[in-house]
């Protein structure tokens, strides 16, 4: 979900139209391909990334961030400032923005955590690092489950 869904559909349409269509020999195959290209063009206007997956991702980010903030406060540390957010997101656009914004804050946290000038005691550093890794793990887990392994051999093998 790190790429544009519309871009994916457009790339697929382009490949079918420009790389597959010229290779087809029969009217039936060409007609089927035209149908497939048409379906994809309609889907471009209708589909979004799964809100359920985005919500799981956002929940992991939020839970991790809250735990990190709590740990840092207990240790008396000043964390990077977090961006204000409309909570909870009311639509797909706000959901995607919330995920982006949450991840941006965690990226700033990475930079703070790995900054050699950071005076954080080793114990607190280790705990915050673990919370950060766990947050990223949680954010990736659902998508990991949904995405099956690609068949690279079929995409690269020479023809018979």
């Amino acid at each position, binding site marked *: 979900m*790190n790429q544009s869904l519309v871009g994916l559909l457009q790339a697929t349409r382009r490949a079918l139209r420009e790389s597959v269509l010229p290779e087809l020999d029969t009217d039936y195959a060409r007609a089927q391909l035209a149908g497939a290209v048409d379906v994809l063009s309609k889907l471009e206007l209708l589909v979004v990334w799964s809100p359920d997956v985005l919500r799981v991702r956002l929940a992991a980010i939020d839970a991790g961030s809250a735990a990190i903030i709590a740990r840092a406060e207990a240790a008396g540390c000043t964390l990077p400032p977090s961006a204000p957010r409309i909570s909870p997101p009311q639509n797909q656009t706000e959901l995607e923005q919330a995920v982006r914004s949450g991840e941006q804050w965690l990226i700033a946290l990475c930079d703070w955590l790995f900054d050699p000038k950071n005076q954080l005691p080793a114990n607190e550093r280790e705990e915050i690092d673990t919370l950060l890794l766990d947050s990223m793990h949680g954010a990736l887990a659902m998508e990991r489950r949904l995405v099956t392994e690609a068949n690279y051999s079929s995409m690269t093998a020479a023809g018979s």
Partner: protein
Amino acid sequence: MTTSDLKRTGNSSTLAVKADSPDLSRNLQGFLEHIWQTPVRLSQLRRLTAGLSWVTMGFTASLEDSEKKTKTQKLILRIGDPKGLYAPYSAQPEYLALTSLFGIPNLSIPRAIAHSDDCAILGAPFVITQYVAGNALVPWSGEDTGQNEKERLTVANDFVDALAAIHTFDWTRSPLAALSGNVPPSDIARHETRRWAKHAGLAEGLPLQLHYAMRWLESRSPVAEQVTVVHGDYRVGNYLQRKGRITAILDWELVHLGDPHEDLAWAGLRLFSPGKTLIGGLISREAFYERYCMRTGFSIHPEVIRYYEVFGMFKIAATLVGAIHRVESRTDDVRMAALGLQLAPRLFELNRLIKEAK
């Protein structure tokens, strides 16, 4: 025929990388006639694989030798597809590696014939090598190697010995020294991390897990005990084998100078032997390291291996981000989109490897 004459033989600036392109055949013939200084006839020009990076084609070249006898050679043309996964390419590193390493004991590689980075000739950088017989396994299919036990053992030994030969080669006295860049051993890991972060579009921002991994790798970068030739993609799938022996180590496009642990860790990534505990389905980790240490005299440091396992997955994830960027810039290779969709599983594995390395 001068290079400028070659440029006038066809519209090579828009040359499609297609085996049946008359421009490709004509310009390739012109190039070979130029370097061999004799008429050349080409036949059987065909694409061998639909790889994601360089395009590999086979062809036959017939020419007259000094005694007017017709000599026929089976050759391989590798073209750095401008739309390929690691574009833009240079043919020079692979050519330097093949010419420098050819003939050293225990390392079978194709003999390099010629190369050029001049896109005016064939439309993209290219390398021409001899053809070597053999077949390559596809590592990620988890398929049975189809070998009997004796063949598996001999191929496994060849696999280790070839890597040891690469790593013990004295590059300082060879054309490969041109790859040096004068990076001190203390900075080699950091240098390579930055290289792949840039490939993933560091300036535009990396995905969260990838950004974390970059910082992690930079903060823990080991000092390279040895700086050796590093193949960069040494694994099952990148060699040819025949009758239980490796006939050629292939795909040298990512060759560079670095820490040999990088190659060791890469070869052992679980991605390249799904469902198997053996490295590439060939050899146990213990046997691999034991034979390698015996052949090289090097020590293998487990914590450095774990570091480079994280680095290897970082490199894979960075490659996939690069594929996503190609989709965004409207490549017509939809396989880049398929690759991009694999990013989440790879980032998940990267997370696991970092936790394990801690």
